[in-house]
């Protein structure tokens, strides 16, 4: 496994923020091709962490490297080329006047010739299934569609890493579903590394690894199975309980002995079937 993002002992403090640093001594390695979810309460420092990765914020202490490059003033634009970001509010990241203009915005910034932009815009829009919307204005799109445009803008740049900062939290379930399934497709197709900040368990369940943040620190890390098996303490960490865990809890409250390990829905059905009902 080849590491692609490396944070060492990052501390970050916002200007005028006296009480505590937004990030305190955070170290983190993300491997190539991984899907990593970051969870934690509102204000725990997730967005701040994401922004230090591509140099939108510069840490007080510690070092950041992406690919083989150390983040510094010289490399920052190269690193931003490698890291695509999708933010929370669909309205506040749409720069272009129409869908295709917005997809092209990042490429324009990199000085990619127009002849090359045209097929890339087309391909990216196909990828997010918005080909018919190329000339539409943002005001005519739903939230989910706007986020897909943002993803297309990232895809068009052929990055290695995509960071989603609560990209689905302002969407309705349908929009959320659209975005997640598109994301899965492009991750496979382009061999991307995904870092997704989320409060949504279904989204976190897609990850290979989950990181938990609290008050500016990384406090826990593990596979979804490991993290989800922690039961009710998960809520305090800023995530909902997956349904099988909730059911296990309810059964436990009723005096039923339940397995300690994490069960997926499938696993839960099997267990109930064999141990509870047909014993």
């Amino acid at each position, binding site marked *: 496994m080849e590491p692609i993002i490396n944070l060492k002992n990052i501390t970050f403090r916002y200007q005028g923020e006296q009480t505590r640093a937004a990030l305190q001594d955070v170290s983190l390695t993300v491997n190539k091709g991984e899907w990593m979810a970051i969870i934690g309460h509102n204000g725990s420092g997730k967005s701040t962490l994401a922004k230090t990765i*591509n140099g939108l914020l510069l840490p007080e202490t510690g070092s950041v490297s992406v690919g083989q490059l150390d983040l510094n003033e010289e490399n920052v634009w190269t690193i931003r080329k490698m890291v695509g970001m999708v933010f929370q*509010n669909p309205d*506040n990241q749409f*720069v272009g*006047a129409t869908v295709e203009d917005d997809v092209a915005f990042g490429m*324009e*910034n990199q000085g*990619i010739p127009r002849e090359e932009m045209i097929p890339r815009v087309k391909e990216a829009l196909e990828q997010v299934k918005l080909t018919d919307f190329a000339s539409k204005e943002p005001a005519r799109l739903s939230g989910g569609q706007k986020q897909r445009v943002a993803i297309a803008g990232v895809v068009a*740049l052929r990055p290695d890493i995509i960071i989603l900062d609560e990209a689905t939290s302002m969407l309705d379930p349908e929009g959320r579903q659209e975005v997640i399934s598109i994301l899965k497709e492009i991750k496979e197709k382009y061999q991307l590394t995904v870092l997704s900040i989320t409060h949504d368990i279904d989204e976190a369940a897609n990850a290979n690894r989950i990181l938990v943040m609290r008050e500016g620190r990384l406090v826990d890390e593990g596979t979804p199975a490991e993290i989800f098996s922690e039961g009710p303490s998960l809520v305090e960490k800023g995530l909902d309980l997956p349904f099988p865990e909730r059911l296990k809890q309810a059964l436990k409250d009723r005096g039923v002995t339940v397995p300690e390990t994490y069960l997926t829905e499938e696993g839960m059905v099997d267990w109930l079937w064999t141990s509870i009902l047909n014993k």
Partner: protein
Amino acid sequence: MMNKLILGRYIPGNSLIHRLDPRAKLLTSFYFIGIIFFANNWQSYLLLGLFTLFCVYLSKVDFGFFLRGVRPLLWLILFTVALQVLFTSGGEVYWEWGVFQITEFGVQNGIFIFCRFVLIIFMSTLLTLTTPPLELSDAIEFILRPLNVIHFPVHEISLMLSIALRFVPTLMDETEKIMNAQRARGVDFSEGNLIQKMKAVIPLLIPLFVSSFNRADDLATAMEARGYQGGEGRTKYRVLHWHKKDTVSVCVYAFLTVALIYLRA
């Protein structure tokens, strides 16, 4: 108070006028407004009037939309015409009362002023009705481009224009939402005396500004994350295409100018 998501008064269409290059439309519209100044007799006004009507016809936009463009200015037009009629002397006197008189020249000048006013409004309206806001902003960028030589920030200004246009519908939507929220909290935007009406605007404007600050902050972050670092070395996805019909339209204006100079007294 406002129409949701209707920015400006562009009427989508596919007429010849709609398809003209926005640069051609913008430049010729201003040019036309410029040469109206040279009209000074019946013949020249007739020429410009027929030309304008012909353009209106070509645009295939319902004539009612043009009349609607005149309506808000109707009082100003009538007022101007009336004053002109009353203050001009010469020729036959039709009516007299104290210092006021209506004379032949007065009536004639009044009609001319009326024509100029209406022609200007029609041409401006034609531009608005047939050109999407975005194309206008592209055209403005192109026209400003020579100013790059004197280090005028053309790229930044056109980016400001296009971002502003992109955000107007979003903010209109937001305005409506905030108004509703404050109405639900007991604000009445249309009642009370003037000061009360002004006060009612505060709970609307402050949130609107604050949300714009937030949006600006988010947007700047998103742009930098997408590699934006100013205009240098940037390429452009949007380009305008100048076609033969645009050249022809410019030639038509040249003819119009010649004809106008020939006809004028």
